[in-house]
């Protein structure tokens, strides 16, 4: 990589403060998803003439919480500014945002985030954090470029967005992805954000390869896509440089369907947003008292939680890291420990089959049907010998799909382990009769014993207790041997 010229990546992340009850400047609900179009609106977020914004104070509190968690310095006073540009998703044709106008600072600045990537620690600087309003959503029936018309839904208009801008400190796409995961977990630990909601975290990136111009990539809307888009862009720029073509400064759009970036505009035509102070809002004072109060209320953050997992539960660092990377997974873990008691087996199951199930079903920990209580019950049933580990894996899948407790599934499916000697003996009797040759072989050959045990397991659909079956088969064989020797 080094030979090919260094990569520099900076991110501009937009996170919705999804835990807020209302939008940033009006009292419409911030729970806009799944509502009929244009029903979650009022004169303010529709930008009707004469309406005025009123700042959601809780949003400022949340923003300051995030700022502190990302080691930023909150401003003593900050203002809102209008970012003026025409676009159909903006009901006022300007966005209320924040900007460094003379004499004013952004809401918070100069922070850093440390995260792990490929088992190494990496620190990236945070340039600034500010609040702004989300625009509405455009729908292009038939796809952008083909749609005969465009529909606008303003339900999202005015949702509180936190913009977090990093310095261009990333040197590889994977770092950007790990950073976003850490950021997400941090915001979720603060209780201000739910990353499982569609479109709640979006990001723009600027990417440059040594010797080329800086390219801005817009419209990246998932974790997976961050790495994809950035990798695509790095390769594209390197190819150009290899061919001796100049990489120009431009803005490109990530096409998530075709998985390529396409040119939007060259930098020379960069828009002039004509920022100026929003005259309908007063400057916001963030005094020391306010900051102190928030500091006191700060919940446990991922790094501290990870340390606690290691110390309190004796987990290896890797396990702790994986668990706290997702707040709901860590919560699930702790809830389960409270019931079941043994941390390591829980961690193993969560990091293994549990996450695999979630991944294949494409659901989040929060939305999954398995509760910590269900998992704890399943693990106890395994301990009690009611089910084998193999069956447990199947039970987990069923729990994921149906939401039923393990015991119910085991009963319904008849997956209870057979430990009744009489039952197994009867099956053994039958198998011995059907496989006379194997029985003969088994008297001298260990392998044939396994074959017989396998047959019994097959006949009981794997439910027979393997140890018990083994014992019964061996006992029966040795009795047979004795009889043969006696004869």
């Amino acid at each position, binding site marked *: 990589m080094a030979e090919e010229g260094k990569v520099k990546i900076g991110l501009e992340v937009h996170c919705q403060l999804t835990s807020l009850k209302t939008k940033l400047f009006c009292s419409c609900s911030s729970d806009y998803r799944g509502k009929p179009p244009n029903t979650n609106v009022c004169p303010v977020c529709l930008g*009707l003439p*004469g309406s*005025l914004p*009123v700042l959601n104070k809780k949003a400022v509190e949340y923003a300051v919480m995030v700022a502190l968690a990302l080691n930023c310095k909150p401003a003593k006073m900050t203002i809102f500014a209008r970012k003026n540009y025409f676009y*159909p998703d903006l*009901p*006022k044709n300007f966005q209320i945002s924040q900007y460094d106008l*003379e004499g004013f600072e952004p809401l918070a600045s100069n922070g850093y985030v440390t995260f792990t990537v490929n088992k190494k620690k990496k620190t990236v600087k945070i340039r600034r954090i500010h609040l702004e309003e989300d625009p509405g959503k455009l729908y292009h029936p038939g796809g952008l470029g083909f749609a005969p018309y465009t529909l606008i839904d303003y339900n999202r208009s005015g949702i509180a967005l936190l913009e977090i801008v990093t310095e261009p400190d990333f040197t590889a796409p994977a770092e950007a992805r790990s950073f976003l995961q850490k950021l997400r977990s941090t915001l979720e630990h603060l209780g201000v954000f739910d990353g499982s909601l569609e479109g709640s975290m979006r990001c723009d990136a600027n990417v440059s390869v040594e010797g080329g111009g800086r390219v801005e990539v817009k419209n990246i809307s998932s974790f997976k896509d961050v790495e994809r888009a950035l990798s695509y862009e790095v390769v594209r720029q390197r190819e150009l440089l290899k061919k001796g073509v100049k990489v120009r400064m431009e803005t490109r759009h990530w096409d998530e369907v075709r998985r390529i970036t396409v040119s939007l505009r060259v930098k020379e035509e960069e828009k002039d947003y004509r920022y100026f102070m929003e005259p*309908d*809002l007063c400057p916001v004072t963030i005094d020391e008292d306010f900051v102190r109060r928030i500091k006191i209320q700060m919940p446990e953050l991922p790094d501290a939680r990870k340390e606690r997992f290691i110390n309190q539960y004796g987990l290896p660092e890797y396990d702790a890291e994986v668990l706290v990377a997702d707040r709901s997974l860590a919560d699930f873990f702790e809830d389960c420990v409270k019931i079941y008691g043994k941390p390591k087996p829980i961690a193993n199951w969560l990091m293994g089959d549990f996450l695999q199930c979630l991944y294949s079903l494409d659901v989040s920990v929060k939305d999954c049907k398995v509760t910590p209580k269900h998992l704890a019950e399943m693990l106890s049933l395994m301990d009690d010998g009611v089910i084998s580990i193999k069956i447990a894996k199947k039970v987990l899948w069923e729990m994921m799909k149906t939401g039923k407790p393990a015991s119910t599934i085991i009963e319904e499916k008849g997956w209870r382990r057979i430990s009744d000697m009489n039952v197994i003996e009867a099956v053994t009797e039958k198998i011995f009769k059907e496989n006379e040759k194997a029985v003969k072989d088994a008297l001298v050959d260990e392998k044939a014993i396994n074959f017989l045990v396998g047959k019994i397991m097959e006949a009981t659909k794997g439910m027979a207790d393997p140890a018990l079956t083994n014992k019964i088969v061996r006992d029966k064989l040795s009795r047979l041997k004795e009889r043969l020797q006696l004869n």
Partner: protein
Amino acid sequence: MKLYWLSAKEIRDKILAREVKAEEVLSEVFERIEDVEGKINAFITLCREEAFKKAKEVDSKIANGEKVGILAGIPLAIKDNISTKGIKTTCGSKMLYNYVPPYNATVVEKLLAEDAIIIGKTNMDEFAMGTTTETSYFGPTRNPWDISTVPGGSSGGSAAAVASGEAFLALGSDTGGSIRCPASFCGVVGLKPTYGLVSRYGLIAYANSFEQIGPIARNVYDCALLLSVIAGWDWRDSTSIQVENIDYTSKLSSKIGEVKVGIVREMVSEGVDEAVLKNFYNYVSKLENLNIPCEEVSIPTIKYVVPVYYLIAMSEASSNLARFDGVRYGYSLNIEGETLDWDKFYSKTRGSGFGAEVKRRIILGTYALSAGYYDKFFLKSLKALTLIRKGFDEAFKKFDILISPTMPIPPFKLGEKIDDPLSLYLCDIDTIPANLTGIPAVSIPCGFYHNLPIGVQIMAPQLKEDLVLKFAVLSEDIIGLKNLKPNI
């Protein structure tokens, strides 16, 4: 005397005393409107039906002995840039010719809660950009004193309606003099309140930093009455000031005590018409006869107020008016089956929906905020604004009241200045300072020039509305001009 010439207080008292029904008063007002509206064109929309419904409601409340509000049964008019639920609100523009707001401005809620009767929406310069009410899409309003003359602007419809007996009271809005100028030209009383005293929620913005909704009436008492209703903190307007509700009428009769009056030198020197000066100094001598000392005070930064005001106001306007794109409400370009990209559609809609003066201000404002010009124009204006405010603070350390002519010239003919925007902008020099500094200012009639009214302006520090009004009552008495009735 016709009922419509009574003062707002008189008509309310008669209604409360059951001497006359609100419905009867309203009928007479609508008759008056029918008689004179053809000549004046004060209204864009009349709401006869809603008005009579409300009047009947008030009458039945009174008949049943129920409690009624302090504006019970008073027919009043509202400038057409103040949002009225279910009633067209056009801003005097083609762009909003069919716009019906789904909500009421806070002031409208307050008026209705006090049982006022809203009779209609008054004509105005398009988006309140003008000094003559000639830039309205719905044709100019004419001055009731001489219909070949402009009524002033931009609240020309409100002032003309009150002056001609079409309404007892009216709301206007004042961004750079838009209440006081037409009040002066039409011979009525108009007050621009302290910035933040009256909620702007529902007022369609022209220049947010400077504008206020304010009352227009035929005498100072009525003006104070209407102000008492509309003033007060509103959570919906973050720039509104947390003050207790005050009944300004109760303050009018108390003794004024010793006041020092300053005559702003820069407002009585260069460019001020002689007839205006004559009337003004006539008023000054009447004050001095009452042993009220009047002394000249210089605020040199006043020479910057016109460019500073227009730069900031146009900049804000360029952003405020961006939302009018033909997508959600109002005028929309008819493309009849033709397919247009959204940006072309926007430009064509805006190009044909806005009038020339509005476009001029949008373009100038856009320039002033653009990269490379921002520092030179917008930021510099903000800095000058600070200096201007300092100048007034200094003056108010020495004087309780500042006075000046409201307008530097008497009312002029329709069409006389409309093609010379710069000379019109300069007419605002005496009214703009109150907007830049956020102080209250009232214009009351102080004389005539060829049967055309001339006004005087009274200013005081922020939130001293009580002092301004008290001084205005005193002045009204010594000048002897109130409840004027133009011959129309």
